[in-house]
């Protein structure tokens, strides 16, 4: 059977997978290929506020005896992955420390426990040098991971706030009476701003501006609405979220975030532009992209730049990049087309292999799928194939290269398989 040999090569598609494209309307994204961060059994994965570092704990891959015997003690070893250099460094964090956080730009890490007596200190990530600290960890209100505020903050009952930067003397700031402080939210050249509240009933809200030049803290009060609105604008939260369907986890746009974000509610502009984009483009692009198994525990960066997830314990990272909707549409179309071509080719191959076993006679239209099933083992694929050849002896076909065997529907056309085994894309008229 010479037909069969022709068919054995499968069409190679573009490696950019359409299943990685997702989005809604004009907001389309591509889940980039995965980078591996770590092997082993990973736990406590956290991403720094700047999105540059990923901190995690890791247990080396246990032996089979350990795995099937008593539960393995969860790891106390900490690691930090730098997204810029793509390297992972082990951190010399003592066993009793339960919290580890990046300070500012990531050159320093702070560790501490929950109790005052637990070990605590700063680690210089480059040199590994550790400086012990003496901070009341129960008064810690901020761990220093925002790049514009690279210091820890402790707040005591008496309104005294300490700003503790690595390698420097702590700075004490007196807050106005009854004012309490949350974490820092933003900064400009002169001030670092903190969310703040006044201990009254009902509670009042506002912000504290810490002046870098004078070292003083000024409180300005806001209405509750102003406070919430400002908070929402400044609070960084990933645009993306995940959804588990069956065995798999999918990445999608965080709908809540999309609908309530100030940009989305700005006016009719957004709505009209969505309507104007051709309905075809929108319908091609799936709302979700496949990430990994449902057990992958995804963590999204607040900067909406990437997702970190696990596959059988190993830690992987995938960047999420915005992609032009037209390009996204092209990618999805090309993929669907390639898939249709591949499916047509596979189905034709199965039919021809059946023919080779049956003296070159192809099955009739009735029940052909069941007859061909042993040659393909993929019923889903056979179902997509519209078998148009009426059956019969292949040797009686006068022109095998122009006689249609069947087709698979694709975007804007059909992938047609011919009796000689070749497949051609025929656009819809």
């Amino acid at each position, binding site marked *: 059977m010479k037909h069969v040999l022709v068919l054995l090569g499968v069409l190679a598609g573009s490696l950019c997978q359409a299943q990685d494209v997702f989005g809604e309307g004009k907001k389309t994204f591509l889940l*980039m*290929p995965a980078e*591996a961060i770590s092997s082993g059994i990973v736990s406590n994965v956290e991403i720094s506020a700047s999105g540059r570092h990923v901190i995690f704990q890791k247990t080396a891959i246990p032996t089979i005896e350990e795995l099937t015997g008593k539960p393995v003690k969860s790891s106390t070893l900490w690691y930090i992955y730098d997204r810029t250099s793509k390297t992972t460094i082990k951190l010399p964090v003592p066993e009793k420390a339960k919290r580890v956080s990046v300070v500012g730009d990531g050159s320093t890490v702070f560790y501490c426990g929950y109790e005052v007596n637990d070990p605590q200190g700063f680690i210089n990530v480059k040199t590994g040098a550790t400086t012990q600290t003496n901070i009341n960890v129960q008064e810690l209100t901020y761990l220093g991971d925002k790049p514009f505020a690279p210091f820890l903050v402790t707040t005591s009952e008496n309104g005294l706030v300490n700003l503790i930067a690595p390698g420097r003397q702590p700075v004490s700031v007196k807050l106005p009476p009854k004012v309490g402080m949350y974490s820092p939210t933003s900064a400009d050249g002169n001030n670092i701003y903190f969310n703040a509240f006044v201990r009254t009933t009902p509670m009042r809200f506002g912000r504290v501006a810490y002046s870098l030049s004078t070292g003083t803290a000024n409180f300005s009060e806001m209405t509750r609405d102003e406070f919430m609105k400002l908070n929402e604008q400044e609070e960084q939260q990933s645009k993306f979220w995940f959804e588990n369907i069956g065995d798999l986890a999918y990445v999608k746009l965080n709908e809540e975030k999309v609908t309530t974000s100030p940009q989305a509610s700005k006016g009719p502009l957004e709505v009209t532009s969505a309507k104007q984009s051709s309905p075809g483009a929108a319908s091609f692009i799936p709302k979700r992209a496949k990430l990994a198994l449902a057990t992958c525990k995804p963590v999204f960066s607040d900067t909406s730049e990437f997702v970190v997830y696990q596959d059988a314990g190993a830690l*992987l990272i995938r960047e999420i990049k915005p992609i032009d909707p037209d390009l996204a549409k092209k990618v999805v179309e090309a993929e669907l087309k390639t898939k249709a071509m591949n499916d047509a080719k596979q189905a034709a191959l199965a039919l021809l292999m059946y023919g080779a076993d049956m003296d070159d006679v192809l099955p009739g239209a009735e029940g052909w799928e069941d007859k061909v099933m042993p040659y393909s083992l993929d019923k889903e694929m056979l179902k997509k194939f519209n078998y148009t050849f009426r059956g019969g002896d292949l040797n009686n076909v006068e022109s095998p290269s122009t006689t249609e065997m069947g087709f698979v529907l694709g975007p804007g056309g059909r992938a047609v398989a011919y009796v000689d085994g070749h497949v051609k894309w025929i656009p819809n008229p």
Partner: protein
Amino acid sequence: MKKLILVTFAAFIAVGANAQDIFGLDTKAYMMMPAESISGGIVANHSISESGRWIVYQRQIAKSPEEVRAITSQNKGDWFAYDRKSKQSIKLKVPALTASVTVMGDDRYGLFMVSDEQESNIGFVDLTSGTSMRLQPHGGQVIYTGEFPFAPFVMVQKSETDYLLLYPNGKQGQMQLSKGYRMYFPIGSDQASTYFFVRNREVSAFPSQQLTYNNQTGATSFKNLTTEENNKIFASLRPQTNFIVRPMGDMVYISQYSEERPAPNKSLIPDTAKVGPRSGRYDVANNSEFVIYQDAGALLLREIKPVDALTAQKVLEDDLKKELLNRAKQMGTAFAIYAADNEDTLPGAEGWEAKIRPYIKNDEMMKGFNYTFRGGDMNVDNPAKTEMGFLMGPGGRAVVYMDGSARWIPNP
């Protein structure tokens, strides 16, 4: 009521064996170990050496959507060799347009083949250092790439009768066959000789013959093979792995290979286990020690270890118990929240399902739950000892009490 809810929301944390990674038969079970990452990026053309020590692959990195899109099947990037002993990948300094790298039987060198227009299209690469050397033009066709441990040389057919044996250390051998003979592949060796499978097409295709090649002198001699010997040689060419890895839907599964259809498992041990999502190629080592697969372009490896069937059964039982306890606890929470909304009163036995339904995630959770509390005021005398309900499990019951705690009670 508040505190009860808080207590019950803490889930059980298991760091031990992952029951979903166990598969096999009642008599013989295996466990897939946690994954080791071999490489990120977009990996193409990965292959495992005969010994299982090396994984050779080609990788490309894309930084932007446009770059991802630009990557096609023609341009697949740099070549690497991952050493399972040192758990490290090193870059192979092979020419651009290298189309394949095969690990040789000596487990140290690779044969690369280049698809450029130069006269010499093959060479050797040292997998431990990455250095490579392109060979002089040989003017023939490579008919054996040297992957068998007993025959670590490349074989080139120069003419109908002349063959060249190329060793990575520079040694060369010549072999001459009479006209009409067709060379297939090496089938074994000892210190003095290497044996090949050949057929004489002029006489008859059968019986096949064994060619003995003297490694020192290059002298050859022939011996006819019996049908049994012939079949044995062909059987040995098939992959010898114990496992079958195959995709189904969105997932890749692994199961034990068996000639006959195995009897269905009576114990909890499942026939198959999920390897990972189906997003690229996957492969199992011929020595059955591990499986490699792709997740979004990245290449991962999972060791497969045999587990005593009784141990496997126990791990699965423990896991099921944990799950049942968790579910019982969640049911307890659902009832408690219902009571909080209904003046601390729990529903009676009749129609409790409909009343609790709004408080649970899905109906699956209720499945098999036996609600044994007769209903009424939740504030009983001894909540930690008063049963609310239970789920049946292997050899016992997962019982949830009125205080929200759950305990495993073995059958008497």
